[in-house]
């Protein structure tokens, strides 16, 4: 018994004297909420802009004042981080990081070197959203927000709401890295930009508002171009990430008036085929919508008009898909849709010969789009209030 007591004592003593290495109190932490990575002015260096939480202010909820920002530079991302601590009185803590913004210039030069640290270190989370800034990432981080006291949180919430329109890509680091690691699939990320002066009452506000404007497409790890909003929804249709959104079609009776249809659910299926060594892909879209608004004053809630609306709805979807296919496939040759993976899964034997030259082959793949669009419900009224 005495021996064991002595042992327990030794453990206790060693723990008290040399424990606590990794201990950090909450008030010694600088919680990083968002980060932006840009190319620095100096050659070959990386400039890092990080947004650090000020807990007391953030709790008060004063708009946009819950954080402060540091900009630092270094040869690697981690180097820049550690350099940033020299301007911070608190140890930087990355686990609660919400968004990672990459500047356009750096993204065009290749993104793989930047994400290694984010994947390898234990603190950063793969659930942070991955966003490409049109312009400089620093501007995005410094942008102002009316409601949220933590700007990074505001950006996160914006991306989370992508499903209301499905016109933006919602990609977190985890998904991005998965696409990046794939041998054939090219990654895609959210695109964010500062919007201009129009519509703002005060002059100083005008330059500092953010808007999600679609997606950034990559070829291998380099940014090749941007998808605008409807093209992004085209992309989301193909990969089955459309959650909701509005499809605006012209009224079948009065071409000058519009009808809005709310997407209730949508799914997609990518079916690859190989005939005579030629790869073709069929994309099947199943979509259901609700009739939500009409601006004409005719009664559209009749079966034959409904099916006409359905056709128009399918037409819109097809156009969106065609647009994105045109850009990604024909213009860039970037397989952001994962057609290569689909072919590999269905035809592993053929794929062996195809893998090396997939990117050349991809541009020649014939893509057939089949849209099955349905209109389900009319809302709580049938005819408009002022009907003819």
């Amino acid at each position, binding site marked *: 018994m005495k021996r064991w007591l002595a042992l327990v004592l030794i453990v206790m003593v060693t723990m008290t004297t040399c424990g606590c290495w990794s201990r*950090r109190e909450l008030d010694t*932490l600088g919680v990083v909420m968002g980060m932006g990575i840009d190319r620095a002015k100096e050659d070959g260096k990386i400039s890092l802009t990080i947004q650090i*939480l000020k807990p007391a202010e953030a709790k008060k909820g004063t708009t946009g004042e*819950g954080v402060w920002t540091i900009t630092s530079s270094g040869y690697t991302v981690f180097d820049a981080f550690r350099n940033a601590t020299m301007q911070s009185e608190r140890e930087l803590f990355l686990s609660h990081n919400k968004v990672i913004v990459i500047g356009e210039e750096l993204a065009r030069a290749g993104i793989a070197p930047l994400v290694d640290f984010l994947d390898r270190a234990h603190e950063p989370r793969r659930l942070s959203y991955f966003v490409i800034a049109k312009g400089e990432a620093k501007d995005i981080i410094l942008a102002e927000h009316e409601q949220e006291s933590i700007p990074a949180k505001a950006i996160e919430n914006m991306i989370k709401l992508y499903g209301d329109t499905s016109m933006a890509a919602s990609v977190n680091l985890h998904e991005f890295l998965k696409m990046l690691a794939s041998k054939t699939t090219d990654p895609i990320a959210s695109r964010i930009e500062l919007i201009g002066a129009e519509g703002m009452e005060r002059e100083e506000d005008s330059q500092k508002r953010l808007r999600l404007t679609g997606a950034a497409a990559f070829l291998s790890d380099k940014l090749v171009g941007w998808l605008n909003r409807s093209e992004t929804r085209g992309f989301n249709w193909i990969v089955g990430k459309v959650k909701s959104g509005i499809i605006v079609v012209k009224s079948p009776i009065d071409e000058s008036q519009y009808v809005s249809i709310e997407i209730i659910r949508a799914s997609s299926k990518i079916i690859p085929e190989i005939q005579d060594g030629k790869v073709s892909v069929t994309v099947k879209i199943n979509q259901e919508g609700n009739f939500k608004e009409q601006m004409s004053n005719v009664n559209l809630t009749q079966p034959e008009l409904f099916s006409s609306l359905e056709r128009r709805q399918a037409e819109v979807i097809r156009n969106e898909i065609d647009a994105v296919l045109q850009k990604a496939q024909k213009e860039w040759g970037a397989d952001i849709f994962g057609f290569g993976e689909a072919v590999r899964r269905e035809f592993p034997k053929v794929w062996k010969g195809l893998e090396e030259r997939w990117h050349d082959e991809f541009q020649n793949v014939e893509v057939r789009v089949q849209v099955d669009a349905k209109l389900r419900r009319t809302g709580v009224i049938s005819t408009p209030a002022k009907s003819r």
Partner: protein
Amino acid sequence: MFNLLKRLVSKKNSTKEKGELLGSDIQRNLDRIKEIFINANDIVIRAFRVGSYRKIKASIVFIDGLVDTGALNEHIIKPLVSDIRLTQPNLWLTNKQIFRLAKEQVLSVGNLQEVESLEDVVSRILSGNIVLFLDGIPTAFTSSLQGWEARGIEEPETEAVVRGPREGFTETLRTNTAQLRRKIKSPNLKFEIIKVGRETQTDVCVTYIKGIANDKVVEEVRRRIKSIDTDSILESGYIEQFIEDGPFSIFPTVGNSEKPDVVGGKLLEGRVGIITDGTPFVLTVPFLFIEAFQVSEDYYSRPYYSTLVRWFRFIAFFFSIFSPSIYVALTTFHQEMIPTPLLVTMAASKEGTPFPALVEAIVMGVIFEILREAGVRLPRPVGQAVSIVGAMVIGEAAVSAGLIGAPMVIVIAITAISSFVVPVISDAGAVMRLFLVIMSGFLGQFGLMLGVTGILTHMVSLRSFGAPYLSPVAPTTISDLKDLFIRAPWWAMTTRPRVIGWKDPIRQGFRLMPEPPDDDEND
């Protein structure tokens, strides 16, 4: 029951080697007793004469205050002095005849025994019996006409119930055995008295149900109680500490209860009870860890609610042990675990407080224990005021003065409230809590889990009278899980706990589920 007791006692008398025997001369006997009880002025020696024609000297010895004097007058003195003359008015009776007459026809008391040794006489007197000496007879009568002032049967405060019997044990051993006997009317319910304590000569009663209780456990209990060699037993806690299996353990391995229905239930599961004279707390062994979570009311309420409440008890226990250490681990090591909005709030309230979370936790824990102790010891109305005001003032003031973060106060409050839910192991809980807080303060979650493995290892190595302490979890007994995480309905509780009642495992028949009557025949 009394017969049984008498048999037990007389057996003991015959087998045991006696000291000094009584003589035939009454005066000599009385002198010896006076000598022994010198300066003890509560002893009463009442001398009178017995017999019709020839009268012989007689004396009754008892301790004033321990004897029901009304009964003594009515049933002993009056018959001896007057009735004996009515039954045999004209005979010349020898001492022996008077003795037999008194025994067989005159003394109208139920339990009348004969003792022959002085030692026995003294111990009978001390335990509140009366002793009757007759001249010329080397044997004395003794009868238990105990009648002292005792507390009535009340509802115990420690184990209050909403539904269930409200009676509790009292300080009188006999009342307690009677209460148990009223619950279990079976000749198999045994009470064995062992006297413990050189000075106090406390009656300790081992009770069990023969045929259900494991004989080895009963024997072991007897052996351990008999080997206690101490001067005094004032409460059952003394016995508990003399017989428990893990004397260094923080966990209790002997259970206790103040309620006859609880003890009766445990006896029926095959446990052995130890009733100590002078305390309402009856010990039960073997005691398993899970018993701390099984409350008598579980078995009286309907099963769904009982199960739910039992789960709340588990959760409360978990909170009471772990919440400070988890808080410390989260705020000082694993800040990533805290949801971001919560982190903002917690970090904000941590701003400007001077102490590390570990110190906060320990200090607040200590303050809470002090407040609790103060609340218990003070007179009840004052005590409540102290605890409530103390907690509020200290909590509120410390937070607003910026000494301690508000989340810490909440954590301690949760801990405090939860620790009252499972009172049986709250003392072990306090020790564990401190240990785990220190462990997690040094190495976070790793230290915490290391502490948990240490505690687990210790707990599984404990045994209580042969029963593994953590049974039925480890070693797992599938059939006993019916009374662990759930409380199965009574008709499904067909077996007794395996590690305790294995001697007669079947408690009741199968297929006892109530069903509506079969209506087929009526159609």
